């Protein structure tokens, strides 16, 4: 019995030694020991070999299926008007009148959307072009070669028995130190030293958490980093976005107060620096929310607010509609584009399918999280522009930078049905085409 305690004590001391010297100290100074880089390079070599092998295997076995990531339908692109003219070949061009073939147009559109539509595919994980040796991404399970299977098996062992415990231990260390550190800093009186210390604590602990996910983050255009008194908006893929962004700067978070573990975290964080947590009742009142955020932004000394205007997690292939509430606050908007590299692990949280614990387990048993973050030049609302147009402008900038598709659909369609007003818009568009010139 005593031996057991003794052994546990030794392990704990060893662990603390490793964490403090190899992880925490470098994290405090923003340095990197280069372990993750080496790991990623080794991984790339292995995955390249695997891709080649799979390619060769497919050529040898012509019966093996091929993943299709280019969409199943070949659409003749064009607006409603253009496509309708194409259907009406028997009519003179420009005849603005109802034609039987207009029903065919709607029929065709309807069938196309049943087979493949632009919106519902954003709420599930994207398919990979080639297998990345994780079973969960292997849609077409078939045997290629013994070596590949051995490597896969080895990968399973490494991920589950070596990486997973390490990562869990690291993540919990990081979170607990965040709570302890921010609580301690909270006891200090308000001063610049307190702010500096709180920033240090936040940064260190987020960096430890990022290492706990084997995250490799590449920041681009650091000169555009969000400044104090501004609002940072980014596309949303996962709750880990917060960790990714907070690795490089301190932000004031915005969100609902929760109970339990998350609540403890929130309470301690707000002691050290002014985050904006709302009660559930307050969230319903949009004016109250806007007022509080405006108050925060107006005090130019406070940290920039971090907001995800999509309101929900989308699968990182597109940017969905930005809710205009964040853009009505005023102040400077600092757009940030986040793009995850899916080859090393899927970071998208499908909240309708997995809960947060299984999601974290998924993430911690992937190879790594590799992400590119682009800071974009600040934008402000222009004269004659309303909040919705401004939001769309910011959205297109982010989509353009991140190589994502710019969709006007609402991310909330994940949970609720489309509004009838959108259907009426389609009807209006059609009636404009045929009635537009009033020559029935």
């Amino acid at each position, binding site marked *: 019995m005593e031996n057991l305690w003794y052994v546990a004590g030794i392990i704990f001391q060893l662990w603390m030694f490793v964490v403090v010297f190899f992880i925490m100290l470098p994290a405090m100074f923003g340095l990197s020991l280069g372990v993750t880089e080496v790991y990623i390079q080794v991984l*790339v070599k292995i995955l390249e070999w695997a*891709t*080649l092998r799979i390619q060769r295997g*497919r050529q040898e076995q*012509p*019966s*093996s*299926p091929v*993943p299709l*990531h*280019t*969409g*199943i339908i*070949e659409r*003749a692109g064009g607006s409603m008007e253009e*496509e309708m003219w194409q259907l009406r*070949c*028997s009519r003179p061009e420009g005849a603005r009148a109802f*034609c*039987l073939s*207009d*029903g*065919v147009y*709607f*029929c065709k*559109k309807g*069938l196309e*959307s*049943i*087979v493949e*539509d*632009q*919106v*519902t595919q954003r709420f599930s994980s994207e398919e990979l*072009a*080639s297998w990345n040796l994780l079973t*969960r991404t292997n*849609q077409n399970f*078939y045997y290629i070669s013994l070596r590949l299977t051995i490597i896969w098996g080895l990968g399973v062992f490494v991920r589950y028995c070596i990486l997973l415990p390490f990562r869990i231990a690291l993540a919990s260390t990081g979170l607990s130190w965040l709570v302890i550190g921010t609580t301690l800093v909270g006891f200090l009186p308000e001063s610049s030293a307190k702010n500096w210390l709180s920033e240090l604590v936040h940064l260190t602990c987020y960096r430890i958490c990022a290492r706990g996910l084997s995250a490799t983050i590449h920041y681009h255009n650091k000169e555009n980093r969000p400044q104090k008194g501004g609002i940072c908006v980014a596309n949303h893929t996962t709750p880990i976005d917060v960790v990714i962004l907070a690795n490089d700067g301190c932000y004031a978070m915005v969100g609902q107060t929760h109970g339990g573990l998350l609540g403890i975290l929130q309470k301690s964080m707000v002691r050290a620096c002014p985050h904006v947590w709302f009660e559930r009742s307050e969230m319903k009142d949009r004016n109250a929310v806007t007022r509080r955020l405006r108050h925060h932004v107006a005090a130019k000394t406070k940290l920039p607010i971090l907001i995800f205007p999509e309101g929900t997690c989308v699968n990182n*292939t597109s940017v969905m509609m930005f809710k205009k509430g964040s853009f009505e606050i005023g102040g400077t908007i600092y757009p940030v584009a986040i*793009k995850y590299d899916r*080859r090393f692990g899927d970071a998208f949280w499908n909240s309708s*399918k*997995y809960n947060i614990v*299984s999601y974290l387990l*998924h993430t911690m048993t992937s190879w790594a999280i590799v992400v590119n973050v*682009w800071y974009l030049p600040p934008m402000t609302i222009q004269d004659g522009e309303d909040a919705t147009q401004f939001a769309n402008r910011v959205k297109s900038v982010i989509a353009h*930078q991140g*190589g*994502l*598709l710019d969709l006007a659909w609402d991310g909330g*369609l994940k949970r609720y*049905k489309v509004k009838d007003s*959108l259907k009426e818009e*389609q*009807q209006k568009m059609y*009636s404009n085409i*045929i*009635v537009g010139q009033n020559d*029935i």
Partner: protein
Amino acid sequence: MGSRASTLLREEEIEEIKKETGFSHSQITRLYSRFTSLDKGENGTLSREDFQRIPELAINPLGDRIINAFFPEGFGTAGFRSSWRRRRRRRRRPYRRCRITADSEGLEDQVNFKGFMRTLAHFRPIEDNEKNKNPPATEPLNSRTNKLLCECTPRSLAFRLYDLDRDDKISRDELLQVCEAVLRMMVGVNISDDQLGSIADRTIQEADTNGDSCISFQEFMKATRLRATSKLRTVSHRADVSDPDVLPLREQGGRGGVDFMTPSLRPAVEQVSKNGVGAEGEGRRGPSSLHLAVSRRGEKGVRKSEVFL
């Protein structure tokens, strides 16, 4: 999480559907994965709500009628076939009064994958070489009954949407009624009754060739004849990649992102399927037909394993 063994598609089912509908193996597996992604209840069938969850379909003015087409009450193969036989016998008794209503309360139907494929099969364009090959041997659904159906574009479905009581003719009153309903459905409340009436009259005048003040199926097909005939396109992935309209922007990476895999390896799939370029007569912008651009190579049974590992 966990495996969805109950909804996996078996090899013999794929063969069956292939024989019946004429889709290729890879098309069937691809459509099956679409079917399962729409099936939120994971019970192997789709309900009307599952269809209405597709936003682009929900805003389509004819969306409800199209959804009805998938359910046995709409027109499954049985109703379709017997209605054609009935037509040959020259009777005008409608097969079934179908209640195509704007809202679908109380109609608790479910459609399974076979029914889904059967309805979609009505809209698969027939390839040229398939027409020349042995039509009676495999007898896909399209050519089973009447050679008019060989074209099989969405026009045949559209006719059904107009012909509500399914007597294979759009009579004058029917058309008036339907035009009003359809136009109102399609254009909302912006058009007055007089305008609707005149639209319907004019449409009948133009389309009716035999002077019986009704639009039959042939007249409908003639009136909506298309510029180009439909063809099934099976193009290579590389061709798809170069077409900006076909390919949604994906996996392009960000600007200046760190590239971990060399470019030659990344699109591993694109190099594999070069074959199956089919008969590319006219340009790929053939209007109005449902082209299914799928590589020919996927012939083996696919098991979509969702095992959490």
